[in-house]
């Protein structure tokens, strides 16, 4: 083709085709007065609600707060921040526990045998099943929510770290021993980097689980965050806000996954087959 940019543009448009058609159908359906708008609001209504949810609730007043602070004072921003904060904190705590334990279990058969039965027992319990216990232990508010997220992030990271260490190609170990590497050097500069592809896969699954868990936890234990907001909206029959909230959850999830992907590519630029995707 003569204009490669045109081709690219056309390809982009192609990707928008299906969503646009669905959106048009949705709009048409809700304009026909067949369905109650409380069941299925029009996309335009959802968009309007989303914008309202996103916008600051008060007029700008320089005496009260700076412009940026005001700009980000909308309910959606605060909810998204609350959810993200919980995910990140829970994920960090979960990773901080899973990583050392996984490295030790992967490297030492004795430690593996010591912990493995317990882990095999606890791992199949969905994090959601910990809700009653977490409320009993921590009451309401952030602590039980973060506890659940920690559990959600912990197991995928743990399992993948163990697998990563156990699967380090013995040729690297032999080469490093030949170069005279001490135990510590072997661990830090050979085993750990060799295991990073697995560990990062675990982290990615862990963040994904944490994100699922945070929404559920917010529906139960706290009174802000995206999960709380859509449940609250249901109580008022604000279906437009429910859907706007769901899309926001989707966008945040996408952002987190993109961030993880970027981290992955950055840390694994040495790894085969990264350029391709």
């Amino acid at each position, binding site marked *: 083709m003569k204009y490669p940019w045109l081709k690219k543009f056309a390809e982009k448009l192609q990707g928008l085709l299906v969503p646009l058609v669905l959106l048009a159908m949705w709009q048409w359906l809700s304009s026909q007065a067949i369905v109650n708008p409380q069941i299925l609001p029009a996309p335009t209504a959802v968009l309007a609600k989303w914008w309202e949810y996103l916008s600051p609730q008060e007029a700008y007043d320089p005496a009260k707060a700076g412009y940026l602070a005001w700009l980000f004072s909308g309910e959606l921003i605060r909810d998204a921040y609350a959810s993200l904060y919980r995910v990140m904190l829970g994920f960090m705590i979960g990773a901080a526990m899973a990583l050392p334990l996984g490295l030790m279990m992967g490297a030492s058969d004795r430690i593996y045998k010591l912990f493995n039965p317990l882990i095999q027992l606890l791992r199949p319990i969905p994090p959601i099943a910990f809700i009653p216990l977490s409320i009993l232990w921590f009451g309401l508010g952030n602590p039980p929510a973060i506890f659940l997220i920690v559990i959600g992030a912990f197991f995928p990271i743990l399992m993948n770290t163990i697998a990563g260490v156990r699967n380090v190609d013995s*040729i690297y170990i*032999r080469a490093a*021993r030949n*170069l*005279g590497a001490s135990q510590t050097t072997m661990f830090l500069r050979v085993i750990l*980097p060799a295991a*990073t592809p697995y560990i990062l896969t675990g982290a990615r699954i862990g963040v994904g689980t944490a994100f699922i868990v945070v929404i559920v936890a917010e529906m139960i234990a706290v009174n802000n965050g995206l999960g709380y907001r859509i449940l609250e909206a249901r109580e008022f029959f604000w279906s437009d806000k429910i859907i706007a909230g769901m899309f926001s959850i989707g966008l945040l999830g996408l952002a987190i996954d993109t961030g993880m992907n970027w981290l992955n590519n950055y840390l694994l*630029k040495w790894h085969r087959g990264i350029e391709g995707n």
Partner: protein
Amino acid sequence: MQPHIQITRVSKVYSSAERNVAALDDINLNIAPGEFICLLGPSGCGKSTLLNAVAGFSLPTSGSILVDTRPVQQPGPDRGMVFQEYALFPWMTVEKNIAFGLEIKNAPRAQIKEKVDALLRMLNLYDFRERYPKDLSGGMRQRVAIARVLALDSPIMLMDEPFGALDSLTRRNLQDELLRIWMEFKKTIIFVTHSIEESIYLADRIVVMTYRPGKIKKDVSVVIPRPRDPSSAEFNDLKKELALLVMEEQDRHLRDEIKEPSAD
């Protein structure tokens, strides 16, 4: 003269639940300082086993291996190993791979840099120093593996079919480079190969091994002056002689495989 490497009555048996494999049997070999030895034999005759025993990765079942009169007990940087699979660390750049052994030794930074730079230049790797192994060709990777061992200043180099996976031009190229390095640094080299031509091109002495149990079948000194011309008459005479020796073992290998197809 005191041998650099003294292998005395070395045997190795791999035992598993089903059966025992006698990989090496009564190997005796003295290697002088600065000697270039090729271990030649068909697949499965125990070449890697012997090399790994000298490297200290897996010790013999009986017998002794002395390096500078001291028994080999574990791997060490005095016996640098070049593996057929390259075994470069994929998460380190070329430069880092070469520097790694020196960093382990806690060499001063400036010294590491100087040495690594010199090796990069010597092996024509300078322009590739910031690349990762995945972005290098096979020949280039093997240069890095050689540089990594050279950085250690190990008096002994152990090479397990290092050029086995390379195309013939790259292979010849690296053989010449290896000979140059060997002469310049006066290394003692044990080089495993199953290419007869490669062994004649490189070695001072070719040790032909038998198949199961791995014994020394013949120890041949190569007296052809270097650089050796593979098309010369003396080269080809030796090649024929060695081919006969190796073929006998190869046949035994094949018969073995027919008897117990799951042998290797």
